[in-house]
């Protein structure tokens, strides 16, 4: 334990004093402020002279600001935080010859990797928590609405999901830092996988869905085919952690959304009734909707770290 704690403390101090963390944090803080500020302004305008809808506070996070909402920004940019914190975790130590020095101290070898992962997770948590708090405070003064208990719970769950999502990328980049001796290779591999899983999987899902159940724009597609097309697309998309996370976090942050599935086959009557009789889901119901997503997200994070752990324990350390 003493070894784990020593590594953890050193890594945490390293993260917070490194330039790359400061730059990343400044960037994220800046974008978050601008996004939530613009969102706040829109909200304020939109709320004038209207009865206050429920969950105004959460709208700070899911209303598109300048370009995107806070939640979308997190889904897109979160992986980069994880990658930046982890891509040189092990191979840098190997390259500068400190890994053998550390492992020849009276500690268990797993203290090194556990300490590094834990320090990364704590850094991510502190970063996200402070941003959510600052935006909340910002929103309080700007919009002048106090968050209710349920909104705080939702934000809390959102925070937990985000921490796991970013930790998945941290674990992945640590895995690459173990597998690849070169720091540049592991950084590139992490970024490549990020781009693939975040963008190409959804693209590929559309392609596959259209191949399996082609949509016919001219003559109109039968409902069965349309349903099949969408199902295939959504199933394949779930391989992307970004889709998993976006689905989970939007449901949690936006109580008006009731399902992660996109609504197809909506006739005019359904559309009217959906917009007229819109009622928010209760917190517990929202949780039930995203429960599989959250479980999957936690599972891939743990699996990813478990693989890194195994590979690191089985490797021979000479330098």
């Amino acid at each position, binding site marked *: 334990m*003493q070894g784990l704690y020593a590594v953890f403390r*050193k890594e945490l101090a390293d993260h917070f004093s490194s330039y790359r963390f400061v730059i990343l944090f400044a960037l994220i803080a800046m974008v978050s402020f601008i996004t939530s500020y613009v969102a706040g302004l829109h909200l304020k305008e939109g709320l004038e002279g209207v009865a206050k809808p429920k969950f105004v506070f959460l709208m700070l996070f899911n209303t598109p600001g300048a370009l995107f909402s806070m939640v979308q920004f997190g889904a897109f940019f979160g992986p980069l935080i994880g990658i930046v914190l982890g891509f040189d975790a092990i191979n840098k130590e190997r390259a500068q010859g400190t890994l*053998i020095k550390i492992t020849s101290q009276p500690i268990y070898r797993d203290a090194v990797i556990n300490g590094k992962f834990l320090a990364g997770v704590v850094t991510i948590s502190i970063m996200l928590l402070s941003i959510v708090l600052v935006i909340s405070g910002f929103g309080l003064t700007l919009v002048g609405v106090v968050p209710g208990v349920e909104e705080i719970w939702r934000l809390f769950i959102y925070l937990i999901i985000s921490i796991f999502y970013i930790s998945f990328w941290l674990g992945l980049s640590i895995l690459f830092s173990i597998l690849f001796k070169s720091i540049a290779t592991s950084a590139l591999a992490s970024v490549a996988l990020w781009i693939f899983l975040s963008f190409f999987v959804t693209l590929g899902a559309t392609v596959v869905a259209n191949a399996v159940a082609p949509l016919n724009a001219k003559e109109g597609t039968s409902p069965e085919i349309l349903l099949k097309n969408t199902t295939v697309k959504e199933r394949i998309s779930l391989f992307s952690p970004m889709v998993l996370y976006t689905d989970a976090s939007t449901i949690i942050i936006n109580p008006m959304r009731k399902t992660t599935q996109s609504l197809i086959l909506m006739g005019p009557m359904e559309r009217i009734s959906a917009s007229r009789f819109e009622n928010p889901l209760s917190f517990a119901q929202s949780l039930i909707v995203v429960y599989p997503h959250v479980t999957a997200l936690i599972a891939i994070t743990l699996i990813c770290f478990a693989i890194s752990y195994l590979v690191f324990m089985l490797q021979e350390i000479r330098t």
Partner: protein
Amino acid sequence: MVTDDSVVVQTKDLTKQYGNQVAVNHLSFTLREGEIFGFLGPNGAGKTTTLLMLMGLTRPSSGEAVVCGLDPVRRAKDVKRIIGYMPENVGFYPELDAVQSLEYIAALNGIPESEARNKIDEFLELVGLKDEAYKKVANFSRGMKQRLGIAEVLIKDPKVLFLDEPTLGLDPEAALNLIDLIVRLKEEHNMTVLLSSHHLHQVQRMSDRVGIMINGTMVAQGTLDQLSKEKFGLGDKTYSLEEIYLKYFREG
């Protein structure tokens, strides 16, 4: 294996294979308390692999080793508490200063902070880095880094030192200072030292006994006189370690 109290390290038929390649081949040797053992051999002879096996960082393919009565395979953590290992080209965190580097090593060894503080002062003084205590390691010269490396292995209060090429790349003066330091540790603190090096005259200067390892096999071990007699026969002339080593190396 039967060991008495003065035996610090003992191996018997220690072997390490990587695939078909034998890195260390049935190595048997003994290291006694308070002696400096010079571990010689060309690059890739298996010296570092042997050290790693003795610390439990690599599992031997066969054979056994005992370090202060402990089995490195099963009691790796306890063995690493006893051994102070300075790897070849010892690395440092460039962004830390000398004191911070030592603090980290002390923390990894579970030394309480207050105690570590005193020890750090003591060992920085011993290795002559007192004035550079708050200088970043990135700005250290090679000699200073090696001395900081020695301070790092001493802070854990080891029973035995494993020094892998401690004088590599040092200028003659820095190398001499380091040798003096190692000899002083032996004489004043009864430290046991296992030292690998290519600088034969330096090894000759400080070692009590030497072992010559070629292609994973220890071809000879003993005092300089013993090796000299073994290879050149009885005579009045004393041969230097260099002559002995080269003769062993050429004849295999």
